[in-house]
């Protein structure tokens, strides 16, 4: 083969390649108009008598204890509502996929729900690390992403993620209210933090620091949900001489933290944010040590206490739990799941007869929902975060008791405001 020949063949080959790349570029030019978030009239998964929604949940893995009950409670509540005719003549079906609290799984499961199962909306998908991984995907597919089961501030970015909405108060709001309680009740004590090593922990600690000062925490420890050894972190908190430990943990890691601390003879005042403090869930880990280990623990809640039988919502949900949820132990997770389901039914009702993705997101942005929450929602076109605040509770003898006022606040440096309104009464038939 001569040099010129070889050069020629290379030129021919290069030209062929370029031509084919050009062909690639004009491969597909199907044109259909895609709507924007507000006026999106598409409604996959909706028929005149049904709505299909999807959710990713940790049915297994490090966050499953406790949290795996949430989607079952949601399904139970929809079953109950469907038996009474549903909302606007439509019955709701919830497709639950397990992601094991592993963001890599969430990426695939969420695509399965949206692209393959063609769900109308995502509802209550659980977890900060998991759901953060799919925000961009949700945005490009314009799926209403309602009431993410996490308090990360990431859900409240209407300009960046127009279809994503939070539900529970964000962790920074919780951190501020817990921080305020610490400041007033444990003045002069050395305060530290223990948080999940992602936005969950970071947002929460940021709230605490917003109240106590950015250098107030003597030691800030984090954990990874896939590593169940928290010995080094708890030992570090002990050696730093912490007297108050504010924790942003999932229930399994609250239990590990309390158990490890007890083993090390370390007994600070524990302050644990709402998602990690459900007593029934912690009992599953701590067994007979529950009452002594939880004695005096401070937490907070934005929903009524699950054991408060005088509350109309608790009564309603307990009835539904008995009939449609195999009468599982009624705890904060069951309450949470049913409350989210109720808010969703309200949103669907508000969206009206012509239900589509645009009308649903518009209905949530319009807000005005009521429910079991202690404070109102903040939903508006410029605010996609959920409940505006919480109330501190102290655990005594294995029972949580609310103390002090209900506070609302923002997620930056705004002050705490006392909220004096009262929650609505539950409707008799459980339908909005």
């Amino acid at each position, binding site marked *: *083969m001569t*040099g010129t020949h*070889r050069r020629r*063949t*290379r030129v*021919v*080959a*290069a030209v*062929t*390649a370029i031509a*084919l*790349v050009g*062909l*690639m*570029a*004009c*491969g*597909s*030019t*199907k*044109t*259909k*108009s*895609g709507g924007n978030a507000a006026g999106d009239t598409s409604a996959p998964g909706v028929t005149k008598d049904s709505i299909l929604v999807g959710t990713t949940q940790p*049915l*297994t*893995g490090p966050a*499953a204890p406790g949290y*795996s009950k949430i989607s079952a409670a949601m399904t139970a509540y929809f079953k109950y509502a469907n038996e009474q005719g549903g909302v606007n003549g439509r019955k709701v079906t919830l497709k639950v996929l*397990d992601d*094991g609290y*592993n*963001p*890599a*799984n969430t*990426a*695939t499961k969420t*695509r*399965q729900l949206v*692209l*393959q199962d063609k769900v109308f909306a995502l509802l209550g998908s659980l977890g*900060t*690390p998991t759901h*953060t*991984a*799919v*925000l*961009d*995907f949700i945005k*490009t*597919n314009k799926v209403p992403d309602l009431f993410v089961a996490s308090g990360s501030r990431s859900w409240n970015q209407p300009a960046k993620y127009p279809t994503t909405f939070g539900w529970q108060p964000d962790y920074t709001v919780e951190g501020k209210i817990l921080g305020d309680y610490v400041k007033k009740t444990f003045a002069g004590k050395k305060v530290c933090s223990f948080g*999940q*090593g*992602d*936005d969950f922990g970071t947002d929460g600690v940021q709230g605490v620091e917003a109240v106590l000062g950015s250098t107030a925490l003597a030691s800030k420890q*984090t954990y*990874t*949900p*896939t*590593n169940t050894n928290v010995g080094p972190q708890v030992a570090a908190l002990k050696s730093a001489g912490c007297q108050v430990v504010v924790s942003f943990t999932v229930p399994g890691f609250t239990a590990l933290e309390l158990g490890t601390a007890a083993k090390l003879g370390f007994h600070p005042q524990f302050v644990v944010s709402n998602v990690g403090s459900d007593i029934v869930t912690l009992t599953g880990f701590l067994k007979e040590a529950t009452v002594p280990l939880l004695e005096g623990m401070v937490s907070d809640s934005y929903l009524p206490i699950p054991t408060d039988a005088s509350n109309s919502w608790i009564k309603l949900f307990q009835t539904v739990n008995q009939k449609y949820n195999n009468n599982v132990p009624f705890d904060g997770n069951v309450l949470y799941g049913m409350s989210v389901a109720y808010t969703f039914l309200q949103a669907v009702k508000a969206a009206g007869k012509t239900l589509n993705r645009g009308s649903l997101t518009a209905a949530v942005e319009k807000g005005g929902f009521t429910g079991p929450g202690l404070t109102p929602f903040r939903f508006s076109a410029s605010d996609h975060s959920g409940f505006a605040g919480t109330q501190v509770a102290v655990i005594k003898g294995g029972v949580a008791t609310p103390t002090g006022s209900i506070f609302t606040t923002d997620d930056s440096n705004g002050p705490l405001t006392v909220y004096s309104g009262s929650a609505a009464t539950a409707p008799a038939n459980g339908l909005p």
Partner: protein
Amino acid sequence: MALLRSTLVRHLVLLALGALALVLLTGSLSTFHNYELAGLGAYVCTAAGLTVLTGLNGQISLGHAALMAIGGYTVALLQIRFSDRAITGLWVLPLSLLAGAAVTGVAAAVVGVAAARLRGPYLAGVTLALGVALPALTSRFTSVFKGDQGLSVPFDPPPASLGANFAVERWQAWISLGAALIVLFFLANLNRSAIGRHFRAVRDDEVAAQLSGLSVPRVQILAFTVSGVAAGLGGGVFAVSLQTASPGSFDLTLSLALLSAVVIGGLGSLAGAVWGSIIVVYLGIVLRGFVDDLGLSAASAQKLHDNLPNAAFGLLLVLVMLILPGGIQGLLRRLAGVAPVDRLRRGRPEPFAAAIAQHSSSPPPSGGQQ
């Protein structure tokens, strides 16, 4: 037909045909299947690099997922920077992917230095340790890597010229499979070059290779680097296809699946790496779908989800080693009646001197080095 005798031309034609197949295939599949294809592209990139390392150079790696993680995180960190500064353009993502591949190449060279001193199970042990330890670093430095949550991977939407309704998933499949084609093209040429012959010479007989003037460690480090570049690109496109880089996506299971893929496909064969990746990816999908349809409780479904594909790969691996030591590609070659181009690990190694003689009498290979 004379043109096809030139390796470079033949590979360019194959590359163009592959690109055409990519366009047609992604256009005819649903968006969800395009998403799965994007994952497949990442497997092919990495498996191709791994088959060069293990099949052609004789070095084993049980930690290639960790190398993919380096590529994936590099791309994520760069893309976040670009996105924060609102830098957009068609060149942005390729630049990040190249950087990811380059950084991984450097890291792999470092691993290669250690690997060049180790043999057999010791090498397997070191790479296994790498595969376990490296993803754990993400929870050591949470402020940079955000622990298990990982980093998001923002990237520009598909260019407007492709049409308003061009799905992002299809674009991701193009990126991923495009990268796989480029990797296959470069490795195929490398395979046919002097460097490829050096790789094989060192694999077959280190002493003979040394006597012929080759520096064995240098060749081994080079093989690791090449393999690392491919894995880095694979990790980069994997992160783009998932739109996130998290330690959970680069776990030990992935390393083992990749090794299964190259063995099942046919060790040392690039086409085999493609077949193996297809089997590993789609067998996994089929088996997981099967488990979902069984209607088991979440706990048992999850156990089967994780373990059934692994068990299947393991079983397949054993069967392939027993029945088809040349893997799928070996079987295809046998069916087509083509003698194996490259001797595989089974049987006596090709005598080095004979190999040299054979190669120097054949027409000059690609690249025009002679």
